[in-house]
């Protein structure tokens, strides 16, 4: 195992989460937004693995396993929704899907 302190990994995970959050706010393409959500999930996975290492058990790694499964289900449903929207209006821009806007 590496001798690099867990704090550095936590910093990396936090910075990647920040980039993901900014990307969700800045980008307009629904698929690209989805990929930034995946980036945030990945960053949190790194945090769980790091916390598992800090505590000296592997419960955190089990949580990563569940996050992976939920992410897979979420991606499949989300992409199906995007394809359904695309069939209706031939556009993946999130701003055009404003039918429910007040």
């Amino acid at each position: 195992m590496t001798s690099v302190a867990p704090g550095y990994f936590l910093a990396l995970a936090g910075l990647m989460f920040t980039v993901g959050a900014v990307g969700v706010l800045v980008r307009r393409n629904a698929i690209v937004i989805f990929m930034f959500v995946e980036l945030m999930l990945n960053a949190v996975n790194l945090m769980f693995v790091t916390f598992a290492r800090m505590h000296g058990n592997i419960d955190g790694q089990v949580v990563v396993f569940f996050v992976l499964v939920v992410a897979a289900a979420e991606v499949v449903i989300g992409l199906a929704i995007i394809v359904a929207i695309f069939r209706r209006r031939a556009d993946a821009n999130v701003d055009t899907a404003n039918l429910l806007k007040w």
Partner: protein
Amino acid sequence: MTVDFAIFAIVFVVALGSSMAMLFAKNAVHVALFLVAAQVALALAFLLQGAFFIAAIQIIVYAGAIMVLFLFVIMLLGVDRRDALVEPLAGQRALAVGLGLLLAAEIVYVAARGVDLVAATGGDRALGAINEDPGNVVALARLLFSRYLLPFEVTGVTLVVAIVGVMVLAKRIGRMGTSVAERTEPREEVPV
């Protein structure tokens, strides 16, 4: 120590650099490829910290299956689409970047405070012993099928729900070639 830190530095630069590149890539395919690079770097970070099974799963499921699904949908919807540059809310982008920088500063501050603190825990030795004696995969499996058995079953239900949901959403029904979502409302004109 220095070799370990050099490896971590490579992981850090690749992971953070490719996530930053995702922000600036115009083409959705490039965004996906940068995401793959970031995920491979993260798999290396998992490996460094003794999470061997998770590192393998990261490559197989994330960088493999999920990203292929993303690329498939990008190809389906058309590759040459550019991101719209108009801002529907004035100043929203600048505000997002400003708040992101603030969050990054906070995280770096907290992590810098915590580096010495967390380095003192004896977790490395305990996790190393677990990875040595029953082995990483065996220990994970024992935990998964004992303490986390109920969440594991719920995971299976989640996947079945996702499969059924995707079939309902994506299937074209009838000769008209319309999906369920399309038939509930009259078809709207495509905005130009």
